[in-house]
């Protein structure tokens, strides 16, 4: 219970003293992870917490989990409680963009203040070891031949994995509304379906299936990153003639209607954290790819992602 009361206390202090701190060392922040313990956003929030405190860019940081509905429950709560606040942050990512559209969420990312894009992980397209598809070209030919019989496995419906499956189907010259995508609660459960040979192909974050790819149980055909990544043998979709790129990005947001100087202070603290060796060490340990972009660039990026994800979801028939 203690962290709820202390969060309340932190909020009271924020209301009492609306002074934006000039130096990062004074920051006492709380980060909302709009997912349960164990998820990607929870990991990102706790990693940011760790790096900000250790690199001296904040005095104390607390993480609160508000799980639900692809992050939209946490987003809705944050948009209300963090209005004008100088000490509250929210972690989010591409899945949230999709969830806002599929759930008809009343609150979207335009109502919060983007601060920085942090990480961007490649998704990987794999087939089981015994699959007849040896290359990406084999797979796209199979899709073009019989789109319904190409069964995909991946994470939640309308999430990044699903969107990539639809984009690849479209690029292969088939109807994206016919994509046969079997949604699992996460990469883990989808992995069992892949290893059991129940599906044709699978999509997940590269890190989640790295072990099976290295052991040869899964064959990686392509990654969704625009450029090749060091240490990953699979080449980008783009380099293999499928003009699709998708990055599973995560970023951090501040509340709605914050004063410019607050935004500047928070952005600086995060920019300094991202440059710190502590953060780089975490990225390496977790296998995350640095995808930092400052506030303004991040805001433009979200607008374009929103457009693209929306168009894909409409093509699949998951959003109106």
């Amino acid at each position, binding site marked *: *219970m203690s962290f*709820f009361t202390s969060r309340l206390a932190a909020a009271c202090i924020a209301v009492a003293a609306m002074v934006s701190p000039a130096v990062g060392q004074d920051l006492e922040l709380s980060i909302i992870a709009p997912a*349960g*313990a*164990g*998820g990607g956003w*929870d*990991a990102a929030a*706790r990693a940011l*917490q*760790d790096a900000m405190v250790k690199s001296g860019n904040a005095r104390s940081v607390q993480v609160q*989990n508000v*799980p*639900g*509905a*692809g992050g*939209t*429950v946490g987003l*809705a709560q944050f948009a209300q409680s963090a209005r004008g606040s100088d000490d509250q942050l929210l972690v989010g990512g591409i899945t949230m963009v*999709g*969830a806002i559209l*599929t*759930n008809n*969420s009343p609150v979207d990312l335009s109502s919060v203040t983007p601060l920085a894009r942090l990480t961007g992980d490649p998704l990987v397209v794999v087939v089981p070891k015994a699959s007849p598809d040896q290359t990406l070209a084999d797979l796209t030919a199979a899709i073009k031949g019989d789109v*319904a*019989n190409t*069964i995909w496995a991946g994470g*939640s*419906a*309308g*999430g990044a994995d699903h969107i990539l499956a639809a984009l690849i189907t479209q690029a292969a010259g088939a109807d994206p509304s016919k994509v*046969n995508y*079997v*949604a*699992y*609660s996460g990469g*883990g*459960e989808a*992995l*069992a*379906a892949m*290893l*059991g040979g*129940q*599906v044709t192909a699978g999509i997940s974050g590269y*890190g*989640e299936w*790295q*072990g*099976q790819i*290295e*052991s040869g*149980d899964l064959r990686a055909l392509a990654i969704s990153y625009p450029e090749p990544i060091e240490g990953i043998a699979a080449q980008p979709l783009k380099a293999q003639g499928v003009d699709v790129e998708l990055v599973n990005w995560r970023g951090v947001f501040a509340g709605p209607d914050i004063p410019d100087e607050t935004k500047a202070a928070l952005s600086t603290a995060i920019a300094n954290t991202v440059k710190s060796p502590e953060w780089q060490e975490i990225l*390496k*340990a*977790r*296998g995350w790819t640095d995808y930092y972009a400052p506030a303004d660039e991040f805001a433009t990026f979200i607008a374009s992602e929103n457009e693209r994800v929306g168009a894909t979801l409409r093509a699949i028939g*998951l959003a109106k």
Partner: protein
Amino acid sequence: MDALTQLFHGFGAAILPMNLLFAAIGVLLGTAVGVLPGIGPALTVALLLPVTFQLDPGGSLIMFAGIYYGGMYGGSTTAILLNTPGEAASVVTALEGNRMARSGRGGPALATAALGSFVAALIATAGLAFLAPWLVKVAVRFGPWDYFGLMLIAFVTVSATFGSSPLRGLTSLALGLWLGLIGIDQLTGQTRLTFGVPNLFDGIEVTTLAVGLFAIGEALHVVSRHAFAPEKPIPIKGSVWMTRKDWGRSWKPWLRGAAIGFPIGALPAGGAEIPTFLSYTAERKLSRHPEEFGTGAIEGVAGPEAANNASAAGSLVPLLTLGLPTSATAAVMLAGFQQYNIQPGPLLFVQHADLVWALIASLFIANVMLLVLNLPLVGLWVQLLKIPMPWLYAGILVFATMGTIAANPSVVELLLLSGFGVLGFIMRRYDYPVAPVIVGLILGPMADSQLRRALQMSLGDPMVLFRHPGSAIMIVIAALALLAPFLFRGLAALRKEED
């Protein structure tokens, strides 16, 4: 024999004083958070992750394992004493366990739960050590059709077992299935029956339903009947410890519970709940005292408690061999591995053999520690029951409500809890079993998703369920279990006519 030598080396590492200390801290913390509803082992491990970053990987993973096992132990205590299951896997324990506690046999109930957990965890940890690589190959072969068959068996057996008649059981189950529909559909991401309330998007929280139906419903029921009765605490009958008869009635359920719990826990989508329900059904069918079920049968505590601990060990099989977390706690433990640059998966046993075996060895040690910690506590815990009833139930109400809001701080959650409390009271008043509602809520969405996945993979052909031998056999068993009682009754009637 290779595994045995490796395990021996593992014990060598686990028995280092520092690692023993970490295991002890882990089981203490785990038991504490298991007893308190609302703060689960998953959140505890998540909070500890940054702290343990400084430690060596072995030490902190050993501590996490202690928390994991400890949480499973602790959950049964509140279920038995306060009828407040802290987690879904302890729901079944509350059924018979609380009846036993209220008839003055709380001590034996707690003891059989602790010993059963110990025995089952021991067997299942041995299973993890020696069978994991083989078991995982079988487990990934389990397709959506097979899961659907397993769910059907669970539905049929549960609705036939709980309650005074199958019809009442099925009615309760249907209510649970309906509650299970609420929320975002996993396969399409669309919301169902949420009426635009964001708090319902993720569905009804199982613990909210369980605590509402069990603890609050029970409290209301007691209040409605005891309004004018004089206050008196529950007397403790006989010994606090298990008698020879209790032992005799407990050991087989422990073994059966372990046998049911471990393999199902090892399935990538098995979970800890199905085995507890199946174990309860099995014990009720096999018991020589079936009439005691519903009034406090020790087999009904021993079996399910063994099953839930065995499944906890089972769920480490996919975590260690596939990197596939099947519970929230396992997911956080996975993050724990990753922070040391260790990726659980097919190569883990090869690349980090020493670490894995130290972890498995420390699971054995944590298990012994838990028994040593919990058995003496039994005598202390049962003192709780000496509290006069009105005080005790007032305490339960506060405890249950606080736990629910701690887990999910929202007004909607509180309203749901009260609503389920009233529902539980009404169901008790009109003699409908409450457990099938919870089974429906947990398994309904799983059965729904698995059936639709199966159909999606077969391009809409329902025969897929019969083309795979596993699912075909399970569906036939489920159909037989549903129809057999009626058939036997019909045959008996026929014979009577012939006579």
